[in-house]
């Protein structure tokens, strides 16, 4: 079989760090995925080639959807809607369909995605691979808890897996970062909504204790909850934040101008308000500019406002309104540090914030939320407790060691770091943070005996290796063997 046509391209994650080049294949039809997986597996079996990984919309911050020197399957071409059951809210779509597409098509019909992260520009396949979570994790769990079944192309065959059909493979794929196969099709259970609006309560919290207290006592009453933290405030005001919580609005709950126009109340028309046209120099987002923004953002928020209607786009995905916002961090890019610690280790959140403010690392975006119970995925990130996500520009000299220190604190507290955001964890720390890793490795060995599913993240964390690289030593006359 001839290998399908590919194009060599340099890829990075959303953080625009650690570029590597791979042969990108446009998977315009699932059969191309089958062919590419077979070809890469044959090569891996002969100790050649550098494997294959699927890539969705490239929203993982680090190196999860890169495969240096190997094949990257661009799965965004798998964008068909295969089956729709509008009565039950059950849909079957290609893995390359974005959550934005699902919202555009199904919100007006009364169905919303069960889980959405801070951006709707992720693919369904990527959502499975990262087992993404949203502001409703404390109520609804993560994405794969709503996946009815999925089709997975592996070197040992194409399988349809579900929580009842080969549950081991299903859950290893949930959060498995694409290392168990290429997801080509997903059947998803949507949630019913009457409108594209939410009724949102907004409160300002004066410090970290205040916001954590409010979340502990009040989150259960809301389906969606998130706190934005001002990472520049220190001392007594450390952790001052804006807490936004809400639930889907029923038609009758909306103001009259919307309630009287159901089409408008259910409309979902995302707009990009602006684009970052060029990459500005690194350092545009510095403690001063970020401090000014944070001050503005905090003061802009109402002290306390109840039941205000917000459209889904603004409530869930405020940053999607600015195209290419990741460029704002400049040429060196940025990373996101997201960790979870159990409830009783809430103090770790405070210590992390203290460490960051002490070195004046400007975090433009710091988000705190509570997780409910995790799912059985051995590499799935969520577990009950607190999760904090911080965007940090690369370039600060102490950043690497600082984050290593934070890893240790998170690990000591029994927590872990989110692989979809990770771009710098060490193999040893990763192993300690994911104690069910052996279960994952076992399933992977079953479906991918040659280890042909490889990514830069997998290489960095010691999950994948390239036994023998491509170039054969050239033979020469008069070669002296040292």
């Amino acid at each position, binding site marked *: 079989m001839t290998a399908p046509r590919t194009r060599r391209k340099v890829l990075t994650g959303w953080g625009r760090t650690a570029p590597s080049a791979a042969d990108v294949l446009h998977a315009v039809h699932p059969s191309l995925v089958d062919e590419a997986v077979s070809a890469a597996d044959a090569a891996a079996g002969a100790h050649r080639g550098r494997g294959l990984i699927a890539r969705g919309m490239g929203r993982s911050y680090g190196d999860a959807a890169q495969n240096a020197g190997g094949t990257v399957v661009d799965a965004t071409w798998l964008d068909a809607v295969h089956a729709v059951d509008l009565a039950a809210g059950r849909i079957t779509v290609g893995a390359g369909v974005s959550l934005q597409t699902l919202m555009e098509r199904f919100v007006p019909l009364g169905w919303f995605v069960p889980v959405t992260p801070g951006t709707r520009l992720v693919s369904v396949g990527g959502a499975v691979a990262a087992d993404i979570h949203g502001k409703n994790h404390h109520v609804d769990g993560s994405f794969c808890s709503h996946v009815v079944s999925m089709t997975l192309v592996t070197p040992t065959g194409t399988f349809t897996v579900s929580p009842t059909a080969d549950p081991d493979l299903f859950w290893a794929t949930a959060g498995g970062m694409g290392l168990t196969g290429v997801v080509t099709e997903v059947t998803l259970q949507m949630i019913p909504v009457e409108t594209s609006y939410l009724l949102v309560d907004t409160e300002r919290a004066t410090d970290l204790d205040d916001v954590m207290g409010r979340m502990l006592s009040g989150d259960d009453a809301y389906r969606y909850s998130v706190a934005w933290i001002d990472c520049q405030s220190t001392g007594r005001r450390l952790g001052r934040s804006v807490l936004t919580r809400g639930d889907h609005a029923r038609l009758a709950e909306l103001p009259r101008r919307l309630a009287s126009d159901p089409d408008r109340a259910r409309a979902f028309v995302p707009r990009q308000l602006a684009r970052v046209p060029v990459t500005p120099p690194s350092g545009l987002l510095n403690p001063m500019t970020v401090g000014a923004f944070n001050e503005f953002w905090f003061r802009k928020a109402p002290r306390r406002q109840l039941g205000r209607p917000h459209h889904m786009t603004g409530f869930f995905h405020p940053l999607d309104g600015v195209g290419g916002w990741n460029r704002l961090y400049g040429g060196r890019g940025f990373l996101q540090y997201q960790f979870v610690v159990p409830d009783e280790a809430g103090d770790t959140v405070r210590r992390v914030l203290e460490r960051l403010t002490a070195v004046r690392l400007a975090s433009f975006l710091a988000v705190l939320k509570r997780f409910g119970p995790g799912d059985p995925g051995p590499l799935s990130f969520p577990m009950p407790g607190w999760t904090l996500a911080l965007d940090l520009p690369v370039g600060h000299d102490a950043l690497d060691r600082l984050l290593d220190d934070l890893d240790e604190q998170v690990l000591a507290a029994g927590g872990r770091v989110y692989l979809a955001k990770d771009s710098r964890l060490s193999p040893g720390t990763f192993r300690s943070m994911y104690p069910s890793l052996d279960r994952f490795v076992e399933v992977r060995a079953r479906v991918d005996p040659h280890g042909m599913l490889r990514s830069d993240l997998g*290489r960095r964390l010691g999950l994948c290796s*390239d036994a023998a690289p491509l170039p054969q030593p050239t033979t020469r006359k008069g070669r002296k063997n*040292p």
Partner: protein
Amino acid sequence: MIDATGRPQSVLVLGGGSELARAIVGRLVPGRCRTVILAGRPSERLDAAADEARAAGAEVVETVAFDTTDLAGGPTAVEEVFARHGDVDVVLAAAGALGDQARLESDPSAAADLITTNFTGLAAALLAAARCMRAQGHGRIVVISSVAGDRPRKANFIYGSTKSGLDAFARGLGDSLVGSGVGVTVVRPGFVVGRMTEGMDPAPFPTTPQAVAEAVVRGISSGAEVVYVPPVLRWVFAVLKLLPRAVWRRMPG
């Protein structure tokens, strides 16, 4: 893999026993670098460098016989390292000799040896490394050049010209690797106070192996194309390059 903060996990050093190489490895290992392959002429110094890397915490440490003047064997040795270890994140070209200008001028074959050591052999080995890295799709090649190559002086033009050649080669190689996922960083130290320059009068703005090592680590993490150590030399040499030759050749030392 080189991570988002610019820390490599493996390094191959050409000229692994050199003082600069040891200082650089000493900086890389405490980060993430667990695999260290030191290529050089078998010697106590090379073994001592390996011991240092182990003591610093590297898990896989290996010495490889590598002689830049062996024009066929050098590139082969590099290719064999890639074949044995798989990915190499950073290839550091730190081999080189200073030579005694007066002796070299009177002994052309010794001069030719120096040119082979500093330029010809190293360039051949780097081409082999570039080929392997292009195939693996990621990595960084770091080439230790010298400000002596910015504008060779009468007093050490043989050494200076080897560094000029190596420097130009490395920049061209970097351009040829654009789009391959592999980058090239050229490091131009000034006068490095150490074993290689023992007994010599330091030139203005002298530096140390530790400072060079720090600059190399930063160069890897930032992906810089050209790094001067100390940084002020960038501007000093920007001016010196403009001097008329009649003035330049009167430069002392």
